[in-house]
């Protein structure tokens, strides 16, 4: 028996969301009185033993180059072998883009009930239930899982990473790897910027900014806070900003520590994508803007006056010129 955590990598690097699921997996294992193991697919340049500080004791590594090409079908079969090797009864994924591709497939393959979008530890006091977000963050549901093997896909930023002491034992897993049917022919990444889904801080702006030429101050603020930038849907629809920055019901759903919304009215569809943020700051010139109802802090004022002052005050705090 064990809790198995899928350690997701990109370009051979362990993703930040993987550290969250490792911390979470370790806690689940503690609750169930068992140990946590991890699995890494593909080659990596990282020292996997160091992941032991997040509680994982043993990592199964399938260091097969074929797995550097992501194909959910191939990955699922390999993970099924890892699940067997570790005798997993609970398998944990991040509910990130890879998790969303693989976890449902593995659920079918292992006939293991899946809770995707989990936001808390399982409750084992009466069966096995896991809390997940539903209605785009406007409510939650407790999902009861009755199958012998259970799969949890944890929402990014829903569980705090804790680093302690320890090293993990890395064992090579000799798994059968099928030939991928999916061929990755091109990858484009906005280099040097913080990926929106993983960002701790997000600076977002809406139609209140009037036009794409005014985003310089948003980008400057974001850079200062090591934040990702986001926008409301009409802004992406008008091509002021790339569509992958669009947050909300029909865009990306995020849950950063801090969400700063500038010149965004706070329509319900927008809130649906950002209401899981821990702290929300709203800057809007209209005191009646609905966003203020969902905010923790707010300033009623003109973004074009407030943002430069805000940026200057943060520079002062951080001691940068």
């Amino acid at each position, binding site marked *: 028996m064990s809790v198995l955590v899928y350690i997701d990598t990109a370009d051979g690097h362990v993703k930040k969301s993987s550290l969250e699921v490792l911390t979470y997996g370790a806690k689940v294992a503690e609750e169930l009185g068992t140990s946590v193991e991890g699995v890494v697919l593909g080659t990596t340049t990282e020292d996997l033993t160091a992941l032991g500080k997040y509680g994982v004791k043993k990592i199964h590594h399938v260091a097969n180059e074929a797995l550097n090409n992501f194909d959910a079908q191939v990955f699922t079969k390999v993970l099924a072998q890892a699940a067997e090797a570790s005798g997993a009864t609970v398998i944990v994924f991040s509910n990130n883009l890879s998790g969303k591709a693989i976890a*449902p497939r593995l659920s079918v393959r292992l006939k293991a009930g899946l809770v995707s979008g989990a936001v808390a530890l399982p409750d084992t006091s009466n069966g096995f239930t896991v809390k997940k977000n539903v209605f785009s963050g*406007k409510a939650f549901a407790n999902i009861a899982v009755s199958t012998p093997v259970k799969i949890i896909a944890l929402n990014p930023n829903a569980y705090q990473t804790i680093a302690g002491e320890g090293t993990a034992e890395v064992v090579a897993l000799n798994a059968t790897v099928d030939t991928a049917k*999916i061929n990755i*022919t091109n990858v484009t990444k906005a280099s040097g910027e913080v990926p929106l889904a993983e960002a701790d801080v997000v600076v977002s702006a809406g139609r209140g900014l009037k036009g794409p030429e005014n985003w310089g101050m948003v980008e400057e603020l974001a850079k200062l806070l090591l934040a990702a930038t986001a926008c409301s849907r009409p802004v992406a629809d008008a091509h002021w900003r790339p569509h992958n920055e669009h947050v909300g019901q*029909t865009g990306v759903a995020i849950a950063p520590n801090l969400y700063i919304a500038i010149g965004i009215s706070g329509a319900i569809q927008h809130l649906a994508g950002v209401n899981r943020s821990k702290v929300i700051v709203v800057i809007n010139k209209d005191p009646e803007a609905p966003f203020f109802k969902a905010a923790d802090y707010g300033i009623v004022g003109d973004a074009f006056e407030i943002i430069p002052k805000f940026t200057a005050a943060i520079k002062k705090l951080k001691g940068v010129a």
Partner: protein
Amino acid sequence: MKILVCISKTPDTTAKIAFTDNNTKFDVTGVQWIINPYDEWYALVRAIELKEKDAATIIHLITVGAADAEPIIRKALALGGDEAIRVNADSHDSFYNASQIAEVAKQGGYDLVLTGKETIDYNGSSIGGMVAELLDLPYVSLATKFELAGTKATITREIEGGEETNEVELPVVVSAQKGMAEARIPNMRGIMAARTKPLKVVEPIAVEALTAVAGFGLPPAKAGVKLVDPENVEELVRLLHEEAKAI
């Protein structure tokens, strides 16, 4: 080319979220039902665009749902598509629904199965992957573009901080999101035509659900916004640093 588009019925995005029966059921009082936006705007419309390019394309729509799902699947037919299939079952969990869809897909011999990114009520983002595994087909999740050349599909999907282009031979299962297609509205002709398009009702296969909803809840209300004087922006920075510990 034969396409199966998965259509689900969801509450309107502005619907009030409340629960009844001791917080075990979604309160449907006064709720307007719509086609799940991802299914309509991206999966279905992309299928229609493919048919507009190649008239030999056949589009079938499928929904797993009771009779009350019929207005929704009719509305989807009004946008486009040749026929609809309703699996006559109350929606259970994702695995149950996926099993019903996979069964119909097996019978139909489709080249492409399209789902939306996720349902906006359950937010599972799971059914596409499950259908793919049940059919033992490749799966491209959260696709933003889909192009076809003969039997080869070129699909762009979202990855953290970017995009990835995938090439794959049909058949394939794809979940669709923003970027896939331009939204359109049904016209009168479509609405009239939909009335005469076939809507088949099939009975579900026996499947055990793997999960069940034990109860719902609402997140705790926010304490209320703390407004800072626009003349004193430094105070906001202080609060974010000292009180919220967010910067």
